[in-house]
């Protein structure tokens, strides 16, 4: 079997996968529930939702963390997903992963709990100012807050924990972050810099401020009742996305390295494509040029044509605009075939795991290839006549799937598509 692809580059394969979402921890639990059409979306209990328009999310509440914050839980979720992926691949040894780390993390900021802690420690009763917070900080008792909220903290700690090699790369390309982490890993292996890479996307940023920020942009579903019915990608009555938490991890290896150590090959990362959008900060170009371009770039990179794709793992957020644009892109790239290719949105069940989404959905795409079964788009009760696609409505379906394309589109004009295959060609 050839060790290089059509362009003479090392073939990149997947030898380990890990995932955690609001549906549960691990591949098995997630896959069973995902193909049963179960939703992980529920009422938010972590914080008060008093006065909020959106009171639902796919939070992960079954993983205890001592001092809750977005980076703290993000790191915990990333750790769980990475442990599962590394265990499956049996690569390296404990704390000694033989390659670099690429990790997608949500933007990090000191949160309200920490600010309030500083206010309390300052003892300020009257007028409050930053001088009071600084006074508390100067005691040196809050170094842990600085450590936790450095932008490099999650990646830095993960690199130490798993013994990945070199400088870990922490990245953010908004809702495409998880896919970008995988793309960086693929590129490093193709350059011959590494024979393995650990690629992770993680996000645990459901808190009052981030809910409100997205809410002020009118991006979130407000269909609070029942929570499980809120995320309705491609349906006519879709009204926004549902924030969610999760992590996905892949162990990537060159085919040569994987075969040399007798690793089981779970799938192939065949192609990556990207194209930035200069149209608007939160909206996609109405002509779909960048999302079309990124899908075409991914197909070209994989050396495949649209005819070769059997399933589209949609970005499918459930916002009115995204799904309409994604239809435009898919119908342009796939032409007449668009109506006949199954396309489904994992987000109908797990919500939008934002910085993790590209990685989580890559794991699901690879599981689709492995099980030859396509997870459904649930909550698809009222078809949108302007989006005539086979969204695998409400019920999973067995199918012959050899090549999958998975889309990720994000704020700031970020577009990434990944093409995955069942086995090396």
């Amino acid at each position, binding site marked *: 079997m050839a060790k290089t692809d059509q362009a003479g580059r090392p073939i990149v394969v997947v030898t380990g996968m890990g995932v955690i979402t609001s549906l549960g921890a691990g591949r098995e639990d997630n896959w069973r529930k995902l193909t049963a059409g179960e939703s992980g979306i529920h009422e938010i209990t972590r*914080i*008060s*939702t*008093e*006065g*909020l328009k959106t009171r639902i999310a796919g939070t992960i509440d079954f993983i205890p963390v001592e001092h809750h914050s977005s980076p703290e839980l993000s790191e915990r979720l990333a750790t769980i997903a990475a442990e599962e992926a590394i265990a499956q691949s049996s690569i390296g040894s404990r704390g000694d992963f033989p390659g670099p780390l690429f990790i997608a993390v949500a*933007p*990090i*900021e*000191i949160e*309200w709990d920490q600010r*309030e802690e500083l*206010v309390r420690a300052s003892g300020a009763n009257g007028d*409050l100012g*930053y001088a009071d*917070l600084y006074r508390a*900080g100067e005691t*040196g008792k809050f*170094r842990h807050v*600085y*450590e936790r909220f450095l*932008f*490099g903290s999650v*990646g*830095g700690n993960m690199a*130490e924990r798993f013994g990945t090699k070199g*400088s*870990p*790369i*922490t990245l*953010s*390309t*908004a809702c495409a972050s998880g896919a*970008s982490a995988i793309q*960086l890993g693929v590129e*490093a292996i*193709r*350059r*011959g*810099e590494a024979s393995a890479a650990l690629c992770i996307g993680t996000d645990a940023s459901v808190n*009052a*401020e981030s809910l*409100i*920020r*997205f809410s*002020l*942009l009118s991006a979130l579903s407000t269909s609070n009742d029942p929570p499980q019915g809120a995320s309705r990608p491609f349906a006519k009555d879709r009204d926004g996305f549902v924030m969610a938490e999760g992590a996905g991890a892949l162990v990537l290896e060159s085919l040569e390295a994987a075969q040399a150590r007798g690793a089981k090959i779970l799938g192939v990362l065949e192609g990556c494509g*990207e*194209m*930035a*959008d*200069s*149209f*608007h*900060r*939160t909206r996609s170009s109405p002509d779909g040029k*960048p999302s079309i371009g990124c899908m075409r770039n991914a197909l070209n990179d994989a050396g495949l044509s649209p005819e070769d794709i059997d399933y589209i793992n949609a970005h499918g957020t459930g916002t009115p605009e995204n799904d309409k644009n994604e239809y435009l892109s898919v119908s342009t790239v796939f032409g007449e075939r668009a109506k006949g290719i199954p396309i489904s949105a994992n987000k109908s069940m797990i919500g939008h795991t934002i910085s993790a989404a590209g990685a989580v959905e890559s794991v699901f795409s690879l599981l689709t290839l492995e099980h030859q079964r396509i997870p459904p788009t649930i909550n698809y009760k009222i078809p949108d006549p302007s989006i005539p696609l086979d969204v695998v409505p409400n019920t999973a379906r067995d199918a012959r799937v050899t090549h999958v394309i998975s889309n990720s589109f994000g704020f*700031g*004009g*970020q577009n990434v598509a990944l093409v995955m295959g069942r086995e090396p060609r």
Partner: protein
Amino acid sequence: MADAREVWITGVGIVSCLGEGIEAHWEALGKPSTADTTAFAPYVVHRAVPVDFDKQIPKKGDQRQMEAWQRYGVYAAGLALQNAGMKGNADLLAHTDMIVAAGGGERDGKVDISVLAGLRTANDHGAYLNQRLMSDLRPTLFLAQLANLMAGNISIVHGVTGSSRTFMGEEQAGVDALRIALARIKAGQSEIALVGGAYNAERLEVILYYVLAKCLTHDQHSRVWERAAAGGGMELGTLAAFLVLEEKQHALKRGAKPFARLTSIESDQVNRMPGAITAALERMWSGVAQRVMPENAAILSGATGVEPITAEERAFLTQHVGLAVRATGTHLGHGLEPQFPANIALAAIALRHGHLFAPADDSGVERAMDAPLRQVVVTSIGHRRGEGFALVEAVD
């Protein structure tokens, strides 16, 4: 190092306390510092010179959608594109890749303090926070806080759309942004890339992080190598730096002139036990030692002043390497993500001029260098984690 593909720096854009653009920086380097000791007292902050953003961000609407760190970044990116001769060249920009090193997190400090004050006496804590955030957060501020929206704004304002990636993680992000862009071009995964970052130190909520870490110096400006006696520390600085990296043939074909060649970049993350920095520098230096010609080479150090890591770097550079050294933090202050890109930019500018700027130090670390400058080694020892090392060379 017999790379088939050579990478040139064909564009440089920089904004700092020293000025904006190449000439302003060249003029100001080696002159007394402009650090501000009053605006954020007791902390010393290197404040950016006033910038006329209209020159690179013509639409006021675009400027309003950004916070200061993004405006500095988009501005410096525009300068780099301009002197690379690619501003407005839609075809070229559409296949230009972009990697930005950024943090974000600029907030509305007034709102934060007012909400915090109210929370002290709120009956229903959660409900109060929700109500205040719903009414007080500006929708656009969210976009001004997201790390990847500096890149997003560069796409919108300048039309760079080949690809867009944002790395986070303080100094490390700046090092790896350049390392990955360089590796991609060398490997044929990219032809031309806009790479850099920006940091605005002139914000209370941003300075707060380093107050918590207790790693800032107080009261008076001091030069990087002189801070150890008082325990060391950083002076933060507002900084934006972007570079255009371009494959040599690609540059030749469009008639672009090189500032310098970006020969190699290495990065690592070592534990910070005593001796670890020395070992890392040793390893990275050994990768270029054979190639470096001591009489025509200098070192631009990204030393932060934080101890004991700065002492370790100082000892390594002076005892082991012995080249002329300049710590740019003395001039620029420390700007985290863009510090390494800025130092590569200054290296490129010095190489174009063919000589090194004057020393700014009487501690014995920095000495005058009169010989022609042909090579510059750039170091980055992140204040908390991450190490980087680059070799920049003159192009004949």
